[in-house]
Each structure stands twice: as structure tokens, then as C-alpha cells.
């Protein structure tokens, strides 16, 4: 079937608009984080929450007493809310960019590097929206949007690929399964990466309140950031594992071996091992906390490296058409 140029054009418009609105939402979130009382209040509230949530070994706390601090809605908070609304709007546009691409090319819209980047950043944003509902972290949206916007920019300029069908090696239902698992895994992994960076700031501030005095005090409790990182990681890790496994099954059918240390396979393996190390570190005395956070950030770097640079720097079998 021929490519539908019009839909592809609309997909591009949607993508660009989504990115632009993310930038605005990013700025709004930074305003709330920088000037709002919300940041501080949320930090205090989350401190309290974390005290309630500690499991084994925690101090004896009886049942929940969710003491909501008095709501204090200032201008920065209102801007923060608007930012969140814009975030949702941009995410919808982002989704429509993906869907339109798929309709334009009559296949799963993740057949080249550009489409892959588009879907991965979308997953990262959706994960963040879910986290925002469960934890008081709206004012931190800017820190997630920063990498998202940078990735979308690089993706939309350097890696842009016109809508086209895929080559024979990619014509397989494994494209849908393997690549979507990789996308979900990598996309979700962006969130713990950001949470772990913030954790390091908060932990440094907790150790020495003079450090990052302004910034650190407005972050949620280290415990909450750690929890966000852990929960998102254990969600993404099995999906990522599944993605690598499906990749091996597909490679067995397409390339003649299930594992051949192709650069993309190798970096996926490295990222996988690093996240396994992260999970281990949380069960190892002396490695919880800061070291675990650093390991998670290393995993995050490996994921980003794998998403873009491997395809650009090295020439493996994985280099998608036009990638």
C-alpha cells in the first residue's frame, strides 16, 4: 500500500507541536519548583508519607493519619497546574503523532530510529503522568521534561526519517513485539534515571544542609525519590528482559543466531546487567541509597546510549533503514 503523505505530514506537525508544548510545560514546572511553596510543602508531606510507608525495620507507626497540610494555592502553584494540563495536552499530541505515522505507513509505527525515539519519549512522559498521580511530584516535571525535550529535538532533527515501509528483515510480527517491549522498557527507565539524579541532590542536601540549600530542600524526601526509582525500575526491568528475549528469538529467525554480540545487543546486555546490579545493590549492605542511585544513573546512560548513539556510531545489523 502506498504511503499516505498527508497523514505523515500531520504526524510531523503533531510531533513538533507536542515538543513545543513540552517546552512550555517544562518552564511552568520550573517556575513552580523555583518559586512555589508547593515544592517545600510537598517535600514535607512526602517526608511524612514516607514515615508512614516504611516497612520492616521502620519506626513503629500505627495506622495512617494522612494529615493534609493546609492548601496554600499561590500563583506558582496555579502555574504548576497549568503546566501539568499542558503536559497532558502535549502527551495527547505526541500520541496522535505516533498513531498518524502508523496510519500513514500501514504498519506498527516503530520501524526506524526516528519512530523509535518518538515512541520512547512518549512512554517516558506517560510513566511520569502515572507517577504524578501517586506521588506529590508535579513540581518536578521539568526535570523529566528536560531530557525528553532534548531527545525529541535530536530525534526530530538529526534522526528524522520520512515515512516509508520497512525492509524485509523487519517485516515480522517480532517487530511489533520485540521493539514495543524495548520501547516500553527504555521509556520507563528514563523516569528512575531522573529520580535517581534528584535523589543524589537530596541525599547530599540531607547530609549537609548547606549543600544545594535552596534546591535540595524543595525536593521530596530521599526516601520517596528512592521509592519512585525502585518501583519504576522493577516495572521496566522484566519488560526490558522480555524485549531482549524476543530480540534473541527474532535474531534466531532473521540473522542465523540468537545472540551474536552485535553492538545493539551488546549495549542492551550491558544495560540489563547494570540494572541487575542496581537490584542487587538494594539487597547488599553498604550499597543502598547513594550507590544504588548512581548505578541506576549508569543504567539510564546505557539506555540513552543504546537508543541513539549505537545506531549512529557503530554499524551493526540493527541500524534501521535511514537511521
Amino acid at each position, binding site marked *: 500500500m502506498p504511503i499516505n503523505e498527508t497523514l505523515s505530514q500531520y504526524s510531523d506537525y503533531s510531533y513538533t507541536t507536542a515538543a513545543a508544548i513540552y517546552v512550555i510545560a517544562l518552564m511552568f514546572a520550573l517556575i513552580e519548583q523555583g518559586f512555589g511553596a508547593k515544592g517545600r510543602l510537598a517535600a514535607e508531606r512526602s517526608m511524612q508519607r514516607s514515615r508512614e*510507608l*516504611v*516497612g*520492616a525495620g*521502620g519506626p*513503629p*507507626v*500505627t*495506622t*495512617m493519619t494522612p494529615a493534609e497540610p493546609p492548601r496554600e494555592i499561590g500563583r506558582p502553584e496555579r502555574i504548576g497546574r497549568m503546566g501539568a494540563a499542558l503536559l497532558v495536552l502535549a502527551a495527547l499530541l505526541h500520541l496522535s503523532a505516533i498513531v498518524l505515522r502508523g496510519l500513514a505507513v500501514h504498519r506498527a509505527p516503530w520501524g526506524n530510529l526516528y519512530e523509535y525515539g518518538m515512541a520512547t519519549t512518549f512512554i517516558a512522559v506517560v510513566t511520569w503522568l502515572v507517577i504524578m498521580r501517586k506521588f506529590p511530584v508535579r513540581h518536578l516535571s521539568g526535570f523529566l521534561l528536560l531530557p525528553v525535550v532534548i531527545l525529541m529535538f535530536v530525534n526530530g532533527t538529526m534522526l528524522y526519517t520520512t515515512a*516509508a*515501509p*520497512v*525492509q*524485509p*528483515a523487519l*517485516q515480522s510480527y*517480532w517487530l511489533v513485539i520485540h521493539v514495543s517491549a524495548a520501547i516500553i522498557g527504555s521509556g520507563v527507565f528514563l523516569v528512575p534515571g531522573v529520580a535517581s539524579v534528584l535523589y543524589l541532590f537530596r541525599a547530599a542536601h540531607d547530609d549537609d544542609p548547606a549543600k544545594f540549600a535552596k534546591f535540595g530542600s524543595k525536593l521530596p524526601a530521599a526516601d520517596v525519590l528512592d*521509592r519512585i526509582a*525502585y*518501583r519504576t525500575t*522493577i516495572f521496566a*526491568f*522484566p519488560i526490558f*528482559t*522480555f524485549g531482549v*528475549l524476543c530480540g*534473541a528469538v527474532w535474531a534466531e*529467525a*532473521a540473522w*542465523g*543466531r*540468537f*545472540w*551474536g*554480540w*552485535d*553492538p*545493539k545487543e*551488546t*549495549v542492551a*546486555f*550491558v544495560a540489563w*546487567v*547494570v540494572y*541487575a*546490579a542496581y*537490584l*542487587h545493590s*538494594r*539487597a*547488599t*549492605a*553498604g*550499597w543502598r541509597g547513594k550507590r544504588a542511585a548512581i548505578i541506576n544513573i549508569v543504567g539510564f546512560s*546505557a539506555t540513552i546510549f543504546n537508543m541513539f548513539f549505537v545506531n549512529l*556510531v*557503530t554499524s*551493526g545489523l540493527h541500524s534501521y*533503514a535511514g537511521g
Partner: protein
Amino acid sequence: MTTTEAPPKKEYRQTPLKRVLAFLRNTWRGLTSMRTALVLLFLLALAAMPGALLPQRNLNVAKTDEYIAAHGWWGELLDRTQFFEVYGSVWFSAIYILLMVSLIGCLAPRSLDYAKAMRAKPVLTPRKLARMPHHLSTTTDRTPEAVMKDTHALLKGWRRVEREEADGVRSISAERGYLRETGNLVFHFGMLGLIIFFALGKLFGYEGQVIVQADDSQWCNSGILGYDTFNAGLRVDGTDLNPFCIRLKDFEARYTEAGQANYYHSNMEYQSGEDLKTGAWKPYGLEVNSPLRTAGDRVYLLNFGYSPKFTVTFPDGTVRTNLTPWRPADEPTKLSEGATKIDQPGITDPIERRTRQLAITGLLAPTAFMHGNVLTSSRPEAKKPAVAIDIYRGDLGLDAGRGQSIFQIDQSLVEDGRLKKLTRQNLDQGQETVLDDGTKVRFDGVGEWVAIQVSHDPVQDWVLVCAVAMLIGLAGSLLVKRRRVWVRVTPGRDGEPGTVIEVAGLARTDQAGYGEEFQRISGKLVQGQRGN
């Protein structure tokens, strides 16, 4: 302020044997500790990385040699330290093996603990339930018996034990989430199996590539010599490959307007097992994502290309037709290069023969497009084939015993003057050129060849089984929550109504969310609802 005294002399004598044993014990403990596992995991990740960044010999020899040549002593050093064969290197294997030992050392005691824990009853109800992270206490009109009954019903599916305490007080201790540890063990054992089977596959497997003309040509898996390239596992000497034969009938590629391939298909036939005796052939459609699986081997379609067809008419009237594969120099347009080498028939004297061999080298364009005087190809299909060739005569060096690339002539022979260039020509399909001695060379068009790969890995199904076990185990290990609930029921004084119910809970894994679950359970318990 402080004075240090010499440490008191040890009383017992350290025999060498004891020292060795102590050393072994400490090494073993160190190796199997969680911290070592962590460090080894890191080293593994670090050691795997160069393989992604540096060219690897097993993937691309030419690129590796180029890299070494371009980087002088640094390239040499990397080469000597096995950075171009990372995954077979001594250091990578060392990390891999240490990790495996660590894994075994970690799994053995954990499996024993696990077996014990599976038979153990949930722990005693603590005396002071109010100290637990989650706690609720209330009084009800229901009788202790009713409360106990409801509690048992509610905690169905939990492992639980009821105990009598003093003064008619009864308690239930319940625990669930044992699958977490099960999953964790399944995961780690799966990984151990995967590592072992992966290594076995490397020992007993092989991989070979060969180019076959798609014009009813037949190829049989009879030995290493049948292949163009062959990678044997350490325990494979190529003497007893699984016998099977294939015959490629044709090859078809289709392209989009933009010249991008979107369909490759080769109609083939194959013979294996009994069919080899009876001579029967089975048909198969070979495509990129669907290899032929037969006789424990897999046959893949890797790539395709064109073979120019030249018809040479010698002055004595003998005719030779030749179809030699040329290799794509530019994949998107399949502009190809190669060397067709021809012996004049009927010459028996080896010395004379070596003055009369012909070589045709140059470029082949499936859809010719002249760029000034330079032949290029505008599309990958063979719509308007043409060649731009040099024709040589002389000694091709085929008898010299040195292996030669089928795509090139030996340039040193040209420099020696043993191979002389006669002419340079551009020929369209059907055109011919006449050499100085009257030999006619006609370009008749192109045929297709297909590059196939044969892969053999006797244990890859077991690798898959282990990988799936890992995945299932991992899901259990990460998603199942291990948690405890205790219920203590104290009857009202002197048989009065007013039973006191105390509920407490503890999450044994560091997951959030038990708070909500505990509230739900304890709420139901207190109200006497049954079922989860």
C-alpha cells in the same frame, strides 16, 4: 596517649594444611558474597562494552584489520590484549566463570534455606503487636470462635497457623508471598542454565556461509570445503556435518518506488534424512525471516547479488559460458564488482595454459546509468544490465596453490607483467567485444546468486527454555510481595461479650503499598467479612 602492644601469640599451631583450608574457605566466602557478585556484575558490564565500540574480528575481519593498521602501536596493543575478540578473550571468560562460580556458591545455600523455609510454619505471633509497622485493635460483640472462623476464611490462600495462648487467647499467624523466593531461585537457576547451554552451543555449534547460484544449482552440506567461510565450534572438526542438500530454483526481490527492498523470496528444494536415499525433493520458500529448518540445521537467506553472464568464443571455435558471482559494492543499487576467470578449453600443456587464461574484471550495473563515462546503477533490479570491464590475459595464478578471492584478480601478477590488460570496454546486454587474437567476449545478461548461511546449534532450544524460566522467575521475584499478618483474639472477661481483636502486619520486602492492603484486610477482619 595510646601504647600499642604486640598482639598476643596465637595458642594453636597453624599447620600448612589448616592455612590452606582457611584460605580456601575465605576465598569461597568472599567469592560467594553479595558484594562480590555485585562487583562481578559491574566488571561484566564494563568488559562487554569494548565489543560494542571496537570492531570485532568475528563480525568483520576487514574492518578490524583496517582499525589496527590505522592506530599504530595502540591498535597492536589492543590486538594483543584481545580487544578485537572481546567475547572469546581470557579476561571476559574469567569474569564470566567467576560470576558463574559465585552464582553456584550463592544458590546452593539459598536452595537449602528455601527447602527448610518451605516446610516451616509461620513465625509465632509476637507478644506486642502494637509494635508492628501496621496495627489495629478493636472490640467486637462477636464470639472469639466466630472471629477465628471468619479470619481463617478471610486469609484463605495464606499459609497460616493457629496457636493457643494463655487464658483462652488465640492467635493466627499468617504469611504469604513465598513465590517471591521461588521466583528468585528459578530466575538464578535459569540464568545458570542459560550460561551453561550458551557455552555448550559455542562448543558444539557451527556456522557457515556459501554463495549459490539461483539457477537450479545444487549445494550439499558435506564438509567444511563446501563453504566459503566456516566458523566451527571448538569441538567441531567438520567431518560429520548433518547431511542435506538444497537446490535453489530462483530468486525474486521486489522494491518500492524509492528503490527500497521489501520482498525477498527464493523457491528452493531440499533433501534430508530418508529423502537422500530415495532422491525425493521437498519444496520450500526461503525468505529472510523464515529459514529452512531441517536435519537439526537451519538454512538462512542472507543476501543476494548478480552474476554477469559472459560467453567467450575462442579463435578455434570453442565456446565457454560463465556465470561467476560478483559482489555488491553498493547495496542500495547493487552496483557490483568482481572477477570472472576463464580457462581456455582444450589446452593441455600447463605452461601454455598459463599464458592463455582470461580474466574479466570491473563493474556490473543492474540498471545502467552513465554518469559521463562512468557506469553507475540507478536501481537494484536487473532492468538494463551493463558492465564496464577490463579484460586480461595471461597467468591467473590459479595453480600457485595460494587461496584467491573469487571477487578479485591477483594484482601482483599484473605488476609482474604475467597478466596483461588487453582492453577496457563498456558493454550493454547482448553486446560483444573482439580481442586482439579474435576471441569474442559477449555480455549476455545477469543471473542471481543467493548467499545462504547454515547454522547448527544443538542446544539452542534449551537456552530458550532457560530464558523463559528466567523471565517467569523474575516476574515472580519482583512482583510478588512477601507479607505477614497476625491476628490475636482475646475473649471478653468472664465470658462477657466484648472480644478484643488485634491485627498487625509486616511487609517483608521493601515495597510500598502494603499499607493500603493491610487496611483492606484489617477492615474486613474487624467487620467480620469473609473472602478477600
